[in-house]
């Protein structure tokens, strides 16, 4: 009964989304005030019905309703409650439902928290969001309903063991919140184009939404990387896997968008560029969804695929990209930018930031789509490995990092860098000298690239800290958005430091070890003391006791496990990791090599935590900046021209 209610609720949600599109977009077009009054109800209705559907599926998981095919395929009587709930989004159908729930939640949030927006404009934004909701709900209902029944089985096939992990339980919702959040900026952009008006207050409304979506995306990607580090990757933190790339490209585009929006808000420039970025960020999110769901890419994330789904998403992708680009071609020329800026100014720096970010997104896109194109045109089956990205991605990224450190100090319109130039040069020199000293003392030797990475990372950290420091010393007010920017940029510096040191000085070694033996790696003695059996809720396994010591002092005791999940019979490696501020020590148990010997992978990962700490700092910076006062002040309603066409002037 409950699954049928869930299915019905989703159908009603589809109806609500349809009403939202109709009354929102058409009502705004025909200027029918009474029609616009329906919009908030349709938004609330859509959310309630989607949430009901989601609740019904969760209920089916919790009570082990194995007559529902999706539950039977992804759950099990022995599966702990946490993973039964996370199992809801453990495969295609449920994760799509989660996607829709998050979209409905964003739509509700926009409807509730945008009191300052003009009614027509808000109706258009919500109408566009409704259109996305409508498309995805019809996709879900027509090709991938999670509520299909099947002859009940006594026990389910269990959730993929790799997904049975706390980080992975929250990784998809986090990532989706970011992914789907790009649709809000997209809806704002489309509404502005429909309206034919884009001014500073538009940018001010759009910025917090974009930044929050970006914060979620940042956290989601970082969580995924962390999970891959200890579960999937045997110690790697990023694989340039097609699906990782699919989440990384919208991140790069959103980052560019955040910066371009700043210019649009403060200076009324880059308007059409900002619109294009908003469209690109959303298109890349849709492309990501397509890549993950259609099975066209070879990836650990790829689900067993169904061609009809791929075609449906491809059609959606085409519709939204083509539609918004056509609208853009038609309307963007009317949204001229006014005012100019000097060659050396914050505008220029932000423009370069955008160009470089898009270049890096282009590199990732090229590497991700290349194998598909080559295959489609029968030019051979290729794969593009990490070496490509490691080289090609650095080309735009290194100048970008340098420019971040400089650009923060440039003022709008016309900057006189001579004044700050001296100080920046000193910062850079200090960063370089510190890096040389630290690397020489800690690791003995270094390459040019390592030095460059460290120096640039430190440079941004120092440069970011100097902004609030100067303000505090001169007793100037430090706005939250400036503070947030500095923390986020500092995070980038920390991240760059982490990546550089971790990649340059990591040591990995596969060895064969028997109990009682030990192995010396990076000055640490890894002693294999014993091996015993362990049992979990739905798995059995063995656990090794590894004692790690340095200079005869015990540093850590690790218990790496090899689990076998009872239902799917898949072995799973649970690494033992000793976490430290300056290094991680990592032991993963391989397989029994005969007699008592086991294969093991030992790793020494210096400063790898900086990678995630840096990402976290970026996210925190983003959060702080959206609490800035000017976003909370209800935006003054601009006296719009009757036809809605025209360019409003700010300041």
């Amino acid at each position, binding site marked *: 009964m409950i699954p049928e209610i869930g299915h019905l609720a989703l159908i009603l949600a589809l109806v609500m989304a349809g009403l939202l599109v109709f009354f929102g977009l058409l009502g705004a077009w025909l200027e029918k005030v009474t029609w616009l009054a329906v919009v908030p109800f349709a938004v609330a209705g859509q959310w309630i019905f989607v949430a009901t559907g989601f609740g019904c599926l969760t209920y089916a998981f919790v009570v082990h309703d194995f007559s529902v095919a999706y539950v039977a395929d992804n759950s099990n009587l022995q599966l702990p409650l946490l993973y039964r709930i996370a199992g809801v989004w453990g495969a295609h159908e449920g994760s799509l439902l989660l996607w829709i729930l998050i979209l409905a939640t964003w739509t509700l949030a926009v409807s509730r928290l945008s009191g300052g927006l003009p009614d027509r404009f808000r109706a258009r934004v919500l109408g566009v969001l409704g259109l996305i909701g409508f498309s995805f709900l019809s996709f879900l209902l027509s090709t991938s309903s999670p509520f299909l029944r099947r002859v009940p089985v006594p026990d389910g096939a269990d959730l993929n063991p790799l997904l049975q992990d706390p980080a992975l339980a929250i990784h998809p919702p986090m990532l989706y919140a970011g992914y789907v959040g790009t649709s809000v900026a997209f809806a704002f952009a489309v509404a502005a184009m429909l309206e034919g008006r884009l001014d500073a207050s538009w940018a001010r409304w759009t910025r917090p939404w974009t930044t929050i979506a970006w914060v979620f995306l940042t956290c989601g990607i970082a969580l995924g990387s962390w999970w891959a580090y200890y579960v999937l990757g045997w110690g790697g933190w990023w694989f340039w896997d097609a699906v990782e790339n699919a989440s990384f490209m919208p991140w790069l585009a959103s980052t560019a968008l955040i910066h371009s929006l700043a210019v649009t808000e403060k200076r009324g420039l880059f308007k059409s560029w900002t619109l294009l970025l908003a469209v690109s960020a959303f298109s890349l999110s849709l492309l990501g969804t397509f890549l993950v769901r259609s*099975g066209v890419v070879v990836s650990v994330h790829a689900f067993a695929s169904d061609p009809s789904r791929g075609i449906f998403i491809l059609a959606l992708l085409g519709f939204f990209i083509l539609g918004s680009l056509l609208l853009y071609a038609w309307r963007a020329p009317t949204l001229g930018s006014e005012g100019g800026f000097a060659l050396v100014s914050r505008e220029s720096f932000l423009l370069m930031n955008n160009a470089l970010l898009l270049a890096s997104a282009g590199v990732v896109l*090229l590497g991700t789509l290349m194998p598909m194109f080559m295959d489609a045109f029968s030019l051979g089956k290729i794969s593009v*490995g990490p070496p490509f990205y490691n080289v090609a991605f650095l080309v735009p990224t290194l100048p970008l990092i340098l420019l971040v450190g400089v650009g923060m100090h440039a003022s709008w319109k016309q900057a006189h860098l001579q004044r700050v130039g001296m100080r920046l040069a000193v910062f850079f020199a200090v960063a370089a000298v510190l890096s040389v000293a630290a690397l020489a003392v800690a690791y003995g030797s270094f390459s040019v690239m390592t030095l460059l990475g460290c120096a640039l990372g430190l440079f941004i950290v120092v440069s970011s800290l100097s902004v609030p420091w100067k303000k505090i010393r001169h007793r100037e007010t430090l706005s939250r958005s400036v503070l947030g920017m500095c923390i986020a940029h500092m995070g980038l510096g920390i991240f760059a430091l982490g990546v550089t040191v971790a990649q340059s000085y990591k040591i990995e070694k596969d060895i064969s070890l028997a109990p009682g033996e030990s192995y010396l790696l990076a000055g640490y003695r890894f002693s294999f003391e014993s091996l015993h059996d362990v049992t979990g809720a739905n798995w059995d396994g063995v656990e090794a006791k590894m004692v790690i010591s340095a200079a005869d002092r015990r540093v850590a005791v690790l218990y790496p496990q090899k689990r076998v999940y009872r239902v799917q019979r898949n072995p799973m490696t649970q690494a033992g990791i000793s976490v430290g501020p300056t290094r991680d020590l990592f032991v993963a148990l391989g397989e029994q*090599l005969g007699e008592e010997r086991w294969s093991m992978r030992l790793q020494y990962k210096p400063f790898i935590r900086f990678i995630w700490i840096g990402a976290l700092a970026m996210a925190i910076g983003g959060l702080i900046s959206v609490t800035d006062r000017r976003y909370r002040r209800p935006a003054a309603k601009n006296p719009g021209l009757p036809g809605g066409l025209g360019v409003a002037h700010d300041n």
Partner: protein
Amino acid sequence: MTPRRKRLMLVVGILLGVSLATLFATRALRENLSYFYDPTQVAQGEAPRGRSIRVGGMVTKGSVKRESGSLEVKFDVTDFRHTVTVSYRGVLPDLFREGQGIIAHGQLASDRVFVADEVLAKHDEKYMPPEVKQSLKKPMNEGATP
């Protein structure tokens, strides 16, 4: 300089930068592509030596051989027409087992022996790498030489 001129310079600069980046990217791409070959192609000598390539197929039942206690492992990969022996030193992925589809990355040492530096087995047991699936679907007589 007029503002127009300045903006033009900026745009030209950015275009230059972007084209330079594209140049680097395409060069890096050409050097780092690795092609996929199935065991039949390897047996017929279509796969290059001394270059990183990928070879994939099913792990032949009963072919996994290892000296007791050694990290060195050898196994056969087949598309049911031809077989390639893969030699690998290191920890195998969790889902590696006989009868499972895998992809190995490495270099050809001879017509029959492939030295892998990485072995990939996918994480969903229902999931088969598309390359392997397609090569298994080829009709038995195609390209098969006795």
